[in-house]
């Protein structure tokens, strides 16, 4: 059994988002691009499954511009065996359906029992591509997974739902699982790992190779805005002696001014 891990390169979560002058998109100047944090959990889980002797090979797959290769190299440095990069200069920010279709095409001829990926990318926050791909492939899905157990061809996964509750979901391979925080602690790439990653196979494909055509998008972004700055509020400073007074004042304001009680 082989595992495919879907990877996306995204801006680091510490990034301050700015828009370009005509507000047609984000200003990418100075952005630090990293492997999506939820995808790190997916890569780690795939490596753990392989190390437990339950998978033979871990392939990482990304759709993105040239720079997305760095995210794939990060995953290879963590220990993945090979990579597939569907490269297109204009693909960043594409509609989820288009990305799912590109992944579908890239998976043609690839043998896998499990597809792992992050539950969402922390840039567009759509949390949609894994489910879309599952439907296109006609296979079972478990999203927001915090525990995976593999027993032969059976997959058992814990899915985090509201209020800390979990659904335990079972199915037969092939399955697609989207990882959330808590699944594991991703390893850091070691220096030898980074050196080795440079020589690992990385296959390139174009959008045409994977069967994506103009007009496949089902949505279009028509406007970008930044949130209005919150008005600076009232800050109550003082000493330990007047703490009670300050708190009583805030409590009254919450009732009379903010009207939350």
């Amino acid at each position: 059994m082989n595992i495919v891990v879907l990877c996306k390169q995204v801006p680091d979560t510490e990034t301050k988002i700015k828009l370009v002058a005509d507000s047609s998109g984000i200003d990418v100047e100075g952005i630090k691009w990293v492997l999506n944090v939820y995808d790190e959990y997916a890569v780690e889980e795939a490596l753990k499954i392989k190390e437990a002797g339950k998978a033979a090979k871990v392939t990482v797959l990304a759709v993105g511009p040239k720079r997305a290769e760095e995210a794939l190299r990060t995953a290879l440095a963590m220990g993945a065996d090979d990579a597939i990069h569907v490269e297109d200069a204009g693909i960043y920010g594409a509609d989820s359906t288009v990305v799912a279709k590109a992944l579908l095409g890239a998976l043609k001829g690839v043998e896998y029992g499990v597809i792992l990926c992050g539950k969402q990318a922390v840039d567009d926050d759509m949390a949609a591509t894994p489910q879309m791909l599952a439907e296109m492939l006609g296979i079972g899905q478990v999203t927001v997974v915090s525990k995976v157990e593999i027993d032969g061809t059976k997959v058992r996964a814990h899915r985090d739902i509201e209020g800390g509750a979990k659904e335990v979901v079972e199915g037969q391979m092939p399955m697609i699982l989207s990882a959330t925080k808590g699944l594991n602690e991703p390893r850091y790439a070691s220096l030898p790992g980074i050196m080795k990653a440079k020589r690992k196979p990385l296959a390139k494909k174009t959008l045409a190779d994977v069967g994506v055509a103009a007009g496949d998008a089902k949505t279009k972004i028509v406007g970008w805005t930044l949130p209005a700055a919150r008005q600076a509020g009232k800050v109550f400073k003082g000493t330990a002696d007047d703490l009670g007074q300050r708190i009583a004042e805030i409590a009254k304001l919450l009732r009379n001014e903010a009207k939350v009680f």
Partner: protein
Amino acid sequence: MSNVLVFAELRGTEPKKITLEMLSAAKKIAAATGGKVLAAAIGKGLAGMGAKLGPYGAAKVFLAEGVEKYSTEGYANILANLIKAEAPAVVLIGATALGKDLAPRLAVKTGGGLASDIIGFRMDGASFIAKRPVFAGKAFVEVAFTGAPAFATVRPNTMPADAPAGAAAEEAALAADLRAPKAAIVEVVAGASSKPDLTEADRIVSGGRGMKDRANFKILEELADVIGATVGASRAAVDAGYADQSQQVGQTGKVVNPTLYVACGISGAIQHLAGMRTSKVIVAINKDPEAPIFQVADYGLVADLFDAVPIFTQEVKKLLAS
């Protein structure tokens, strides 16, 4: 004459609050498209659903009766059949654990487009334009649809439900597809908390690195009990083991939208602010006057949280009793 379909998510046999919120939004959309509001519910014991949903705006309610538990594929099949038959222009689904799992699969099945976790919309003539946060709320995009129907998952607490008025909705049966799904729920493990999930909570009390220890969250629990809040945490607190992963608020946790957010011992890292900045009223308690959290707080208190929170709890208790 394009209709709007609302997937009526239930808790047991009662519509969730998000369902009522979506029905109110659907009325506004239908007014622009010249269509009607349809609703679909899946579950067991659905009798009387027309009377529960009609007053909030549903004209007709489709009921798939006898479905014991959720499965992505099962629900997607049932709804895809309805969508193919009724051809709604817009389909609204709650941005809940269930809705977020279901909607993308359903969109592909029916050839529609999807905008996840929307917080607003506008009508451009009869065209539905959704507004949604990206980068956990550091920016917003407006999304137009080139595929039909337009699917949107709607974030709870963003579109207020109108007061109920009017008659019960007409009811119609919807065939329940009972084929075994490829992935099936075999067990549900209940969470430790009976409080609403952070994403649906109207009030949240959160603790950060300043809490210093897991046991200290007790003082936040006490405040939360008094004001009916759910307890959250910053990434720093979760990573330090003071709180559970399910409690994390922020870009790599949950994005929340309560009426009141009380941040205790949280400095206000950019990735935390992204997850809570749309809270209507923010209270911050931190001993560092330079903490960035004070830049977004409506009411800031510079004090040691271990002194301040118990007093705050008592003050609010007094106020609520008066």
